[in-house]
């Protein structure tokens, strides 16, 4: 009997698909966390953006585990949950992902300060993109102080995000023996 159906073929135990699904779920949870932080009055209208840090980290270190459709989904998820302008957050995040991938090979071996500088640049591009879309929609700009505070606090907290994500990544690698880098 010949083996033609995909169901009959042997399982690919080295497939990265389960990891990709888990990372997608983690990304969606991160969108929730971002929204939850907004309940703290100090972050009113200017919550830090851990999703950008997550996308940047993943695209630099594990580019094959976080695909653009997942990032689109994360953006849409945030837009649905927080009544944001449809498409603007999603497109912004995808631009972040594409920018993060530029010079990816060199970024994996650069110093932390260089990574931080690249991240700051990407946050600025994201904020400028969102400001541009907002301006096209309403011919006005939102509160500059809140926008700059949001960008600033995201840049400022990057080392924290980086350490947390590196620790999680290292722990998971030790537990499961990552070979997907």
């Amino acid at each position, binding site marked *: 009997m010949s083996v033609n159906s995909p169901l009959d073929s042997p399982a690919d135990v080295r497939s990265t698909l389960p990891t990709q699904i888990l990372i997608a779920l983690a990304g969606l949870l991160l969108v929730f966390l971002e929204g939850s932080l907004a309940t703290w009055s100090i972050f009113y209208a*200017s919550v830090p953006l851990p999703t950008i840090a997550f996308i940047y980290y993943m695209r630099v270190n594990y580019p094959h585990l976080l695909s653009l459709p997942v990032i689109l989904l994360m953006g849409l998820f945030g837009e649905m949950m927080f*009544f944001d302008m449809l498409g603007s957050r999603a*497109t912004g995040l995808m631009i972040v992902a594409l920018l993060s991938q530029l010079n990816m090979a060199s970024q994996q071996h650069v110093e932390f300060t260089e990574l931080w500088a690249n991240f700051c640049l990407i946050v600025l591009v994201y904020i400028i993109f969102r400001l541009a879309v907002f301006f096209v929609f309403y011919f006005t700009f939102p509160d500059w102080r809140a926008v700059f505070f*949001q960008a600033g606090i995201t840049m400022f907290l990057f080392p924290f995000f980086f350490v947390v994500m590196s620790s999680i990544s290292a722990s998971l690698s030790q537990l499961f023996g990552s070979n997907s880098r």
Partner: protein
Amino acid sequence: MQKRSATKRAGQAAKLANILIILLGFILIFIAKVDLFAVRTVQTSTSGVLAPLFDAMTTPLTAVQTMVDGVRTAASLREETIRLRAENERLKRWQRRAEILESENRELRTVLGAVIPPDREAVTARAVATPGNSFSHTLLIRHGAERRIRRGDPVVTADGLVGYIIDVGRGYSWVLLISDVNSRIPVLLSSSSWPGLAIGRNASELELGFLPLQAQPRENELVLTSGHGDVLPPGLPVGRVNRGDVGGHYTLTPVVELQKISYVSILVRPEGAARADVDGFDRFYNPVPEQDGGRMLEGFTTKDIVQ
């Protein structure tokens, strides 16, 4: 050789897929501008389904906030006591003044024969999600259609107007805050009764626009809802006038501290009362005007410019 060309083809396909997905993002932005009813329905349904999960996630973070507030309060307890005593004295004076004014008001109403607007009932709800960025000032609150909440219902706190309901799910509703760029509240100046519009700017202050030329708002003057348009009831405090600039532009500071909202009241119509003019509200909210039976993109048509 074949392997190399296959890799090249795969790379080109990946690039094409990336371009297509970015294009999809831009198409979504375009769809958002067109403001399709179906998109809004999907958005409301999705957020309605996911809201309980989000609600559960915010609980520990809210607890942290409460703990921080508790520590801060304990630290400033002595100052707080002194301040509260002074405030209590001031409030007692105001209470006496209010009693006199209430009696005077009752007498004046019988003289003028003023019509009291139809009563509303208050539904108290917890704020689940507050704006996390500067691009959209909305609030997700507990309770929805199951508590007779409808689109257009005003949302208030003890201080004044917070916003109004823009979408209602079964157990959750969305509030458009008065500070959102889409918010336009018909208002009156409390002292001079000049009408105007309180316009949101996605900032901490609102713009006081469309005032008659003769109007000269005073600094710190209270601004109330006028009730024009029959969406919001009249007399709800909205904000206080800031100092006007040289060009005669005025701004308002909302009377409600929007960044500290934890509970709100929704003023719903009592059971059996006439429905709010939801169609009128739709026209009021929809950013895309209708021309010749079709929807056009505001500011993006050359037809009007040519004509």
